[in-house]
């Protein structure tokens, strides 16, 4: 037996209204596949907002500390150089000259750290196989996924009749 039942729609508004109708009948939706981000869908499906931004902040903050620590070690402790009379006795005095690199390094690590976290969390990495149920969900169709194990109390026929009531273009199992 296949694991999930899908309803395919050709319009985002029809799909969102369909999702609301399905949830109103106490059928749980596992996921929704769409060719572009649909605003407000997370509220309908009750998906929590991502915490990626917090990650970016943490990567950036670490990089900031690392850049300042690194430069004060290189330029002030390990090998102090008198360059054009610029003060190099302590970090505070030398700080203005360190700001550009501190900034760049913070952005570098925050951006790349966040991008890598994003790719891993989505499991979108080179060589990974696509898991969208229908090839047209990356073109102009929208799919609602109903997992059988999540809806043990509801029969297949019931699920299908609920889905049929939401005007899909196609219902299929996979």
């Amino acid at each position, binding site marked *: 037996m296949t694991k999930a039942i899908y309803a395919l729609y050709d319009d985002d*508004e029809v799909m969102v209204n369909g999702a609301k109708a399905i949830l109103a009948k106490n059928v749980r939706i596992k*996921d*929704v*596949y*769409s*060719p*572009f*981000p*649909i605003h407000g*869908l*997370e509220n309908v499906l009750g*998906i929590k*907002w*991502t915490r*990626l*931004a917090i990650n*970016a902040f943490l990567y*950036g903050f670490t990089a900031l500390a690392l850049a300042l620590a690194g*430069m004060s070690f*290189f*330029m002030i402790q*390990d*090998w102090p*150089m008198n*360059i*054009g009379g*610029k003060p*190099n006795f302590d970090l505070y005095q030398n700080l203005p*000259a*360190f700001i*550009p*690199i501190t*900034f*760049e*390094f913070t*952005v*570098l690590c*925050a*951006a*790349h750290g*966040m*991008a890598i976290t*994003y*790719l891993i*969390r*989505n*499991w*979108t990495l*080179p*060589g*990974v*196989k*696509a*898991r*969208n149920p229908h*090839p047209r*969900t*990356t*073109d*102009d169709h929208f799919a609602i996924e109903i997992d059988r194990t999540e809806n043990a109390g509801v029969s297949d026929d019931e699920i299908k009749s609920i889905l049929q009531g939401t005007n899909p273009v196609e219902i299929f199992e996979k």
Partner: protein
Amino acid sequence: MQKESAIREPLILGDKTYHQITEDVCAPVEGKANKYWYMAFSVAVIVALWGVGCILYTIGRGIGVWGLNTTVDWAWDITNFVWWVGIGHAGTLISAVLLLFRQKWRMAINRSAEAMTIFAVMMAALFPGIHMGRIWMAYWVFPLPNQFGSLWVNFNSPLLWDVFAISTYFSVSLVFWYIGLIPDFATIRDRAVKPVSKMAYSVLSFGWTGNAKAWIRFEEVSLVLAGLATPLVFSVHSIVSMDFATSVIPGWHTTIFPPYFVAGAIFSGFAMVQTLLLIARKVLSLESYITVKHIEYMNIVIVITGSIVGVAYLSELFISWYSGVEYEGYAFMNRATGPYWWAYASMMTCNVIIPQLFWFKGIRRSLITSFILSIFVNVGMWFERFVIIVTSLHRDFLPSNWGMFHPTFVDVGIFLGTIGIFFVLFLLYSRFFPVLALNELKSILKSSGDNYKKLHHND
């Protein structure tokens, strides 16, 4: 459903559906290239090969093969470097700054503008590399402990700031661009018929699925990367300008440099986007997406940044007199009236006077005048960097040192060669990559599409 004011011009013309957008954008990738593409590609490859030859010649013989002399020891190479970095500013500005300002018109142009940014920054990074003379030592710019003891690179030097700025800018722009490309590669992957292209786009799309949570993360990543890239856009050219501004050469030692360079960079970047997109929209039949309104918006940015650049030129001139520093005063008098007056005049004409024509609505909405004016800006901005660099150096404090700069065929060859390499990359991009951000365009179709706007306002 978000609705837009009726008087706001639609951003997607014609009777488009989601599927039609996919068809239109995938057509160049899935179809065969026409003869114009092959002609342009052949010319670009020949010019690029000539450039590569000149670069190899430089590496083999040393930078003595350039026209540099003891007085003018920075010339075309640094001019080209700053010119290319400047051009590279529009892409991230369009995708990051305009994203934060929720400008929907950016969606039709951001992909190509970012591609242009990445290729332009690659060309820029080439010049400091080959200028080192011994390019195999280029890794010395990074703070690596070496075999000579704990000698570190100089973190007080703007040249090192530049290394960090350019590498951060390049890699962050690349990541930003690629993250936007992943869902669009997935679209091509799911449509591909031939096994080779199916496999290639499967790898490129990283197995993108497009489920709800992935899109939430996608939006968050785009927003935060835009927030990080925005100060980056402004910092990169500020730091490039500090290569000059922190020196004590009259004509370079100016506090106005950072904002003036940033405005100039955006100005030249938009001009290059305009040049490329005016051709691309025609060749790739994307007139419904890159509309006259998009062209007009970009021209408005050009006229505003051009005016900022003009004010900067005049302030610089005024301050050189007002400062009372005779060397500073001479440097600017010499620019305008000395042996390089023609470079200064070209710069003033192309950057300050000609873009002012964009105040006329007819001129900024005409494709032909937009194209011609964008070429003028590209040329003018090259001259600006040439004027700043060469005219400040060629007459220094000792009149016995005074000289002129004469480019050799190698200087010219490398410069033209980078234009060739740039076009090779851009032409390849336009054949194999989705040139418009498919997923973003689809998300604005119902609010800004022509057919939907008409439908809403007839309700």
